[in-house]
């Protein structure tokens, strides 16, 4: 991993069109500003990883349980 030291208001460039600026540093919080083309998606890593993890769990869906779920939902619908 490339490690660079930057001060507040200093930037790094990734390629020609992605710029990351250190906007503010407060204790252990760093605020970053990112300028990038619109088609580049930027996400907090933990959000991306949370979705990935949930997708993997979802892909192992217990199909046998589904008919039980149908029964539970049907019962709820009836009560309405």
């Amino acid at each position, binding site marked *: 991993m490339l490690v660079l030291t930057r001060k507040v208001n200093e930037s790094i460039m990734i390629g020609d069109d992605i710029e990351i600026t250190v906007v503010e540093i407060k204790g252990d919080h760093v605020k970053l500003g990112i300028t990038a083309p619109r088609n580049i998606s930027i996400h907090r890593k933990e959000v991306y990883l949370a979705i990935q993890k949930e997708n993997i769990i979802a892909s192992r869906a*217990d199909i046998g349980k*589904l008919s*039980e779920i149908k029964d539970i939902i049907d019962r709820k619908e009836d009560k309405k």
Partner: protein
Amino acid sequence: MKIKTKPYGEIEVSERQRIIFPEGIIGFENIHQYFLIDSREGPFYWLQAEEEPDLAFLLVNPRIFIENYKLMVDKEDIKSIGVEHKKEMLDFAIVTVPEDPAKISANLMGPIIINKKTRVGKQVISKNNNYTVKHYILEEMKKTKEKLVESR
């Protein structure tokens, strides 16, 4: 045409049910061809991978259990599947079915959007910070019902 599915074995599907995910689904980036199939078990759909019979995602329309569901996604994401307006697309949440069926949940943080006309799909990241990867469907249904009772 016939395809092998995880929930129902070999079944007949129409080419019109084919959904293409150019970027795959997060964590499954190499799989692009799916079929959207009605579930035989309640208000769900299956997104069945064409090449991998063992890979299928259960989908749900979140509006059936959250009264005021608001899909908030980046305009660029919508444009990337060739859609100008939300009306031109379908959206779903992926469902997780755990050991205890009462804990069935939907992922509202990573909705699936599909262009109705071209049937190109994408999993996007919700811009609504209230939505997480685990919304318990039965609990949400109960809440919605309670609200209805209160408002009477």
